[in-house]
Every structure is written in structure tokens, then in C-alpha cells.
């Protein structure tokens, strides 16, 4: 759309708005000013759009907030005939459109009649800065705080006036601090007398985080008292962050450990307890992930409101389906191979090939999308620690699964029978335990747990036919390192390997860190040939 196009259209749009205003209610005269700015969004070039956003931000008109938010959420469209900018919402019989400024209902049009307004990163950045400026005076303290934050990040000296006005009125101490920091950042960015700068450095330093660092680092490069002050502030913040950095690394390590643990627990049963070299273990994880995908797919088509609970629905289903498949494998193949562990390797390898290809045939070879529920997205801050929700939940989830499994092993009749059968099969049999049935259930349990691990791993990794392959080797390492047949060993093994890996990674890089961990395992096994927590007694000699 060219500028002549706009000017040709402009009178028509104005007329509509004036009509609308006349018919609804005569409000403030300033309102008429927004409409031409909004109409600028129909431009195909980005520069005029960015300019319009900035002007909307500077207008001080609270209605601009909703308009900018709609723009940011991509709810604004242009009509293909006439280029009018409208707000549109999807309904059953098409797109319900309305005027973005007045809210006037303009009826329903088919989707094809509308064209989404294009956004780019610069526009998005300008929008959040503009919303920040506009909401500085909001009655809600939290919104004012966010506004001050976004001004801190944009550091636009046009905002200084508004900020000063807001500061004068601000009563909430937390928000006031944020505003002062934002003001200091603007001062630092745009140059002032030295004493102002040094004062501003102190204010920004009090934040003590990465954002403060990015404001200060630029100043620290020069000479003179300001640079000195900035340098000192930077070192102070860096020292503080370094400590937090170590804590952060521990979290990363535990988080990686929890992933390893989840992947390995099932194997600790099928391999560790039953002695089956279960190469199809990874595919059980994969099946769990695909169950999650199917559950979400069903929810998307038939009950979208359930989406946040999709993982809770998927968990028992994944356990059941993977468990049943595991039992079928045990019944069809594994039970003929007890006492011949190395042959289970061969058979389960074959099964894993078949399962992979089956999934590839059914679901296609490409990645499938498993969504993250809202409560698992994003992160929260604990001091300077960035903790992502999904990692935190997975960490606790892995502990919960392990704890539950230990309880089952220790305190249930099935757990008792399971231990009895694995320790001394003929004796257990002669005590009346149906050893065949217990084997089947045990293998099902291990597979089922791999299935629920798949549900969790679908949140952080690809859901593809190759999913299982990427975990199988790590899982074996963990179980063997921890000591075959010992669940505590699996826990300690997973966490040790996770933390070791994450502490090596910043120095050695991701590849070398992994190599070092593998070499460490090899050397460790020389020292303790039966892993961290070795089983003792004759049972070992098999």
C-alpha cells in the first residue's frame, strides 16, 4: 500500500469513525487521533508501522494499550478490500471483526477477506516498550512494575519525562525502586554530568543481575571516574553472579541427572533386577512419548480445555500401554530366554528394530509435536537462579517415581515375590509363587516405568522414532555405574554423572565433557568392577 493509497482512504476511514463516535457517545476529542495511527498498520513497510507504534505509545491514551496488545498477539488484520485495519476474532462462521479503536462491531466476514498484519522483531520490541510507557500510571502495582522493567530494557530517553511523573506519584517501594533503576539506566545510556552518572551506576548496581551488567559493561571500557565506578560495579556484580553460577550449574547437573534417572529406572528393573539385556528399553520410552502425543491429539480435537491436564491423562495410559507391550514381549520372547542373558540382547535388539519401524510406519518418520502445558512453561527466579518449570517438575517427578517404585518393591506382596524370584527362582517356585507370572509383571513394570519416563521426556526432547536410541546407551551406563540390581545405585549414579557432566561442560565443551564422563566410567569400573553399590554374596557369581 502506498502513501497515496492511505491518503485516499483516510477520509473514508475518518468518516466511519466520526459516524461511529456520533452514534455511540461523544467522548474526548483525543480519541479521534488514534484512528489514523492505527490505520498506518495497513502499510506493508515496517518503518511507518514502527513510527505509528511509537506515537501510540507517546499518546498517553490508555486505549492504545489494548490496541498494541492486539497487534502484538496478531489479532489485527487489514480488510483485503479497502485496507481498513480491523480487530478480528475467530468464530464458528468466520471472522468476527470490529473496529480496534472504538470496538464497534463490524459483522462477520470469511477468513479469506482478511490479511494478517505483519510483525517483525523490531515492531515487537517497540510494542513492548510502548506498552511500558503507557502503563506506567496503571492503578495495578504489578503492571507498573512490568512497565518500569520494559523501560529499563529499552532505555529510551523519550520515556524520561513520563518516568519522572510516575516516580513522583509512586507509593509502592518495590515499584519505586524499579522505576529508579529504569531512570538510572536511561541516564546512563544517554549521557549526563559525571556525578549523575556515578549516582546512576550505584542505582543500577543494586540490581546485581545480568541486565544490570549489560547496562554497565559498555561504560566500564573508558577512562575517568565514571568508568572506574562502572568497572567496580561490574566486578562486584560479576563476583556475585559467579557464586550463583555455581549453584545454577548444580541445578543443571541435577536436572540432567533426573533425565538420566528417569530413562534408567525402567532399565534398572528389566536389566538390573531381571538380568535381561533389554535393548528395547529405549523403545518403551518412545512408546510413552507417542502415547502423550496421541492423548494431546485427542484432546486438541475433542476437548481443548483439558489440555493442561494432558500429561496427567497420559501418565497412566503410557504406563499401561508400555507395560502391556512389555508383558507381551516377555510372554512371546523373553520367557524362553531366562538364564541366557546374552541372547536376550539379540532378541530385544530385533524387537527394538521392529518397534522403531512400526512407529515410523504408523506415525511417520518426522517429529511429532507434543505441547507443553502452561504450568510447565517458562521459568522462575530464585535469587539469580533461573529455574525452568519443566526441569523442576521433571526433577521432582523422577524422585517420585523412584520413591514409589522402592515402596512397591519393599512393602507390597508383589514386590516381595519379585525379589524372591530374582534371588532364588526354584526356591520361590517351591514356595508357591507363580514365577512365570511374577516375571511377566516385573518386565511389565519396568516397561511401564519406561513409558512414563517417555511422557516426561516428551517435554524436553524430540518425539520421533529415534527417541529411544538416544537414551539407551546412557541408561545402560547409569545402571552399570550405579551397580546392577540396586535402585539406590541408579539414583546416585544418575545424579553423579549428570552433575559431573555439567561441571565439565563449561570448561571442556559439550563433546569433551561427555567423553570425559565415559572415560571416567571405564576407569571407575576398574576400581569397582561391580559398580557403585555392588550386590554381595553368591548371587553375584552368575
Amino acid at each position, binding site marked *: 500500500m502506498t502513501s497515496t493509497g492511505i491518503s485516499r482512504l483516510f477520509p473514508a476511514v475518518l468518516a466511519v469513525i466520526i459516524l461511529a463516535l456520533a452514534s455511540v457517545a461523544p467522548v474526548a476529542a483525543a480519541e479521534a487521533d488514534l484512528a489514523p495511527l492505527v490505520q498506518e498498520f495497513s502499510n506493508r513497510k515496517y518503518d511507518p508501522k514502527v513510527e505509528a507504534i511509537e506515537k501510540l505509545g507517546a499518546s498517553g491514551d490508555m486505549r492504545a494499550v489494548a490496541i498494541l496488545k492486539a497487534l502484538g498477539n496478531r489479532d489485527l488484520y487489514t480488510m483485503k478490500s479497502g485496507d481498513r485495519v480491523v480487530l478480528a476474532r475467530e468464530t464458528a462462521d468466520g471472522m468476527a471483526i470490529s473496529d480496534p479503536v472504538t470496538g464497534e462491531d463490524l459483522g462477520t466476514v470469511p477468513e479469506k477477506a482478511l490479511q494478517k498484519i505483519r510483525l517483525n522483531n523490531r515492531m*515487537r520490541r517497540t510494542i513492548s516498550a510502548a506498552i511500558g510507557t503507557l502503563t506506567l500510571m496503571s492503578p495495578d502495582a504489578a503492571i507498573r512494575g512490568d512497565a518500569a522493567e520494559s523501560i529499563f530494557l529499552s532505555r529510551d530517553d523519550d520515556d524520561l519525562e513520563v518516568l519522572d511523573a510516575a516516580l513522583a506519584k509512586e507509593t509502592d517501594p518495590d515499584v519505586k525502586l524499579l522505576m529508579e533503576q529504569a531512570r538510572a539506566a536511561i541516564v546512563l545510556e544517554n549521557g549526563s554530568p559525571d556525578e549523575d552518572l556515578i549516582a546512576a551506576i550505584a542505582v543500577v548496581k543494586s540490581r546485581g543481575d545480568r541486565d544490570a551488567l549489560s547496562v554497565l*559493561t559498555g561504560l566500564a571500557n573508558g577512562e575517568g571516574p565514571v568508568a572506574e565506578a562502572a568497572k567496580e560495579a561490574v566486578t562486584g556484580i560479576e563476583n556475585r553472579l559467579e557464586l550463583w553460577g555455581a549453584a*545454577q550449574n548444580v541445578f543443571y547437573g541435577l536436572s540432567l541427572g533426573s533425565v538420566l534417572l528417569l530413562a534408567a529406572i525402567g532399565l534398572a528393573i528389566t536389566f538390573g533386577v531381571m538380568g535381561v539385556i533389554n535393548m528395547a528399553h529405549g523403545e518403551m520410552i518412545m512408546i510413552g512419548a507417542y502415547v502423550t502425543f496421541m492423548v494431546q491429539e485427542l484432546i486438541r480435537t475433542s476437548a481443548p480445555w483439558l489440555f493442561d491436564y494432558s500429561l496427567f491423562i497420559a501418565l497412566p495410559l503410557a504406563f499401561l500401554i508400555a507395560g502391556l507391550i512389555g508383558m507381551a514381549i516377555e510372554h512371546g520372547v523373553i520367557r524362553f530366554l531366562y538364564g541366557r542373558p546374552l541372547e536376550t540382547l539379540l532378541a530385544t535388539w530385533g524387537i527394538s528394530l521392529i518397534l522403531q519401524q512400526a512407529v515410523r510406519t504408523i506415525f511417520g518418520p518426522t517429529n511429532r509435536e507434543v505441547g*507443553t502445558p502452561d504450568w510447565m512453561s517458562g521459568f522462575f527466579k530464585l535469587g539469580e537462579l*533461573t529455574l525452568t518449570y*519443566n526441569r523442576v517438575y521433571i526433577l521432582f517427578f523422577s524422585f517420585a517415581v523412584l520413591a514409589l517404585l522402592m515402596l512397591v518393591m519393599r512393602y507390597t506382596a508383589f514386590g516381595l515375590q519379585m525379589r524372591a524370584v530374582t534371588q532364588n527362582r526354584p526356591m520361590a517356585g517351591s514356595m508357591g509363587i507363580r514365577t512365570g507370572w511374577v516375571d511377566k509383571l516385573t518386565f511389565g513394570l519396568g516397561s511401564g516405568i519406561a513409558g512414563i519416563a517417555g511422557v516426561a521426556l516428551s517435554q524436553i526432547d524430540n518425539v520421533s*522414532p*529415534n527417541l529411544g536410541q*538416544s537414551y539407551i546407551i546412557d541408561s545402560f551406563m547409569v545402571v552399570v555405574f550405579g551397580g546392577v540390581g540396586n535402585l539406590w545405585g541408579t539414583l546416585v549414579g544418575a545424579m553423579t554423572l549428570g552433575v559431573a557432566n555439567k561441571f565439565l561442560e563449561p570448561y571442556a565443551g559439550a563433546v569433551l565433557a561427555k567423553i570425559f564422563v565415559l572415560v571416567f566410567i571405564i576407569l571407575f569400573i576398574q576400581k569397582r568392577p561391580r559398580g557403585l553399590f555392588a550386590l554381595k554374596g553368591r548371587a553375584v557369581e552368575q
Partner: protein
Amino acid sequence: MSHFSSALTRTAAALAVGAGLAWGTAAHAADTIKVGILHSLSGTMAISETTLKDVMLMLIEQQNEAGGVLGKQLEAVVVDPASDWPLFAEKARELISNDKVAVVFGCWTSVSRKSVLPVFEELNSLLFYPVQYEGEESSKNVFYTGAAPNQQAVPAVDYLMKEAEVERWVLAGTDYVYPRTTNKILEAYLKAKGVAEEDIMINYTPFGHSDWQTIVASIKEFASAGKKTAVVSTINGDANVPFYKELANQGIKAEDIPVVAFSVGEEELAGLDTAPLVGHLAAWNYFQSVESDENDAFVEAWKAYTKNPDRVSNDPMEAHVIGFKMWVQAVEKAGTTDTDAVADAMIGISVPNLSGGTATMMPNHHLTKPVLIGEVQDDGQFEIVWETPGTVVGDAWSDYLPGSKDLISDWRKPMSCGNFNVATGKCGGQGE
């Protein structure tokens, strides 16, 4: 003696299986033209390559409906090299010498191309390679229909420098030859543009890397130096989903630290919830969202062929579309499927690409391509935010690498050389 002979027969039975195939298949009567498709349908690369096999089958079907080539029907020969690189070479030989295919469309990874290259040269057959790659190669027998680094990486960096005013760069890639070479080129390019050493961070990760916490955190740290920072990602296939998930979870938004990727297209995004990734960038020569009649027709046909209305298209698919059209034209022009005649006829052929322009096969066996930059949208598609005014000629030998800056490739007679050194005036690298 009877024992001996019975033992002999038993061992013979076993070894004969191996030897048996030695006296292999006899050539069929050729009333069709065979087209080999050499894409992994299993193993790690199946995720990307299976789609290309389907595209080829569709194109061949369409061509047959339109009357075939030279009055003959085309016959697709599909094999599975199973993401196993020596198997690629074996299968290539099988296609060429047993199945007698006239041309092969295939390969994805650089290593698979390197593995089959000697086979194609030895048996003098043609390969169409559809994926963006590191360059530094020009074979008489290979037509590179994907992008060379100057058709993807360099313009993308230019865009970020000019439009997003990026001053600090993270070059993150999977540790293999394409990212290594691309990053070498970009590093040289950025330094030539005045970017300081300390404003470039280079990071490599293994294939299938899934734990990105540390690296994403270090990117955040690198970005907090008060300069606008961007990530140039040459992270390969499988590792991308966990990478983007981690970016989203750690709250890195495109407004703050944009990530521009060279290996992430519509297919890769299909496995992701893209809402938190809106605004991150990708540079390709084609996006599904391109507005042109050719593209609308192709996308529609593709969805109908796969019977899946959600099926997406991507850049390597377009490369096969272009490559196939070119091959058909070259065969028609040459009047034969003979390798040398077709290879000569290929150079200079122009066909419409899917983005509304034309692709021309250059004498260096690379294509002219437009460069498009797209931003990820919440529906898994890309919004094109920038494109080159015209098309860019693919450069087999990068000007930014010391080893190759003097090399050019021209397969027209009389030069017919893939690595002509303009400094020494000799064919064959650095001469001597």
C-alpha cells in the same frame, strides 16, 4: 570321501549365499527410463529424507501423467541406505550398475554425498543433491540444487547487521563439516566487516545434543554485554527441538536475542509448539508461505498426494522440484539420457522456481537462488521479512576461505574444470 563331500556341500550352501548374488541380475529391456532415489528411510536421517523420497515419487508420477520423458515413462527405483554412509556408496553402485538408472536424486548429509561421490565419478552417472551445504566442492557428476553458503549464511548475517543492528554474534553449531565451514566463512566475513574477535562466540555440540541448559545460559551471559546480540545457528536436525524448547523455557525472546537458523525449516517446526518462538529467524531460498502461483499449485498437489492437509513443504523439497524439472528439460534437449550429453545440456537451463522467479543452472553446477529471511510464526510457518532483490549465484568455492579464494569452477568446454585456480591458471587446486 562321502563325509568330506557332505561337509563340502554344507559349507558350500552357506558361502553360496554370498557368492550367489555375484551372478546378479541381468539387465532388463529398457522401455522405461529409471530414476534412482537414494534417501534414507530408516535410521537417524529418515526424519528428514523420507519426505524427499515422497516428493520425488510425486514428481515422477506427475511427469508420467504428462507423457513421461522422450516418449518413455519414468520408473522410480527406491532404495534405503539407512543413514549408513558406506551403505550409501553401495546403494549408489547398485542403482547405477544393477538397476541402470539414468539419474539419481538423493543424499542429505555431506558425508553421504562424499561417500557416493567417487562412485558417481567412476561410473559416470548423475546425482542431484538437494540440500544446503558447505560448498568447497564441484564435481562433474553432481548438480547442487541446494544453497551454497553465500546463498544463505552470508545474506542472513547481512540482514541482521543492517536491519536488526546486531553487533555481537554467537555462532552455534553441531560439530560437523557444514557448521564448521559455514562458521569459518562467517567469522572471516564478520571480521572483514569490523566485528571484533571478542564479539564472536563459537560453540559446537555433538549430534543429537539434548541438554541445552548450559549453552543457552552461556548465550544469555554473552548477550549481557550491552550490545545487541544474535545467534547464528547451524544446529542440525534432531538437536533443534530441545534447543528451541530450552530457549523458550529460559524466556529468551526473539526481540532480545534473535536466533537465525540455516537448518530449521517447516518440517523441523512441525515437531514444536512455535508460540514461544515467534520472531526467531531462518534463512532459506524457499518458504512454504511464499506467495506465487507455482507454489500454491505445488503445495496443493503435495497435500493431495500425501493425503494430509497439514503436510508442510520446505526448501530441500523445492530444490528437488527445480532439479527434476531441469533434468527433464535437459534430457529433452539432449534427446538422450546419456550422462555426458545431459550434463552438457544442463548448464544454462532455466526453470521457474516456486517463489515466482527462475532458477538457472550455472556452469559451476550450482543454481541461482533468491535468499529469503523468514520469521517463525505461531502456526509453524515463516513470515518472509526480507528477500534479496534478485537471485544470487551459488559459489562453489568461498571467497572467504584462504584455501579456496582463488578457485573457480566451470564445467563448460573447453575449461571443464571443477577447481580452476585463477592465480596459477591451472586446473587442479593450487597447481603443481
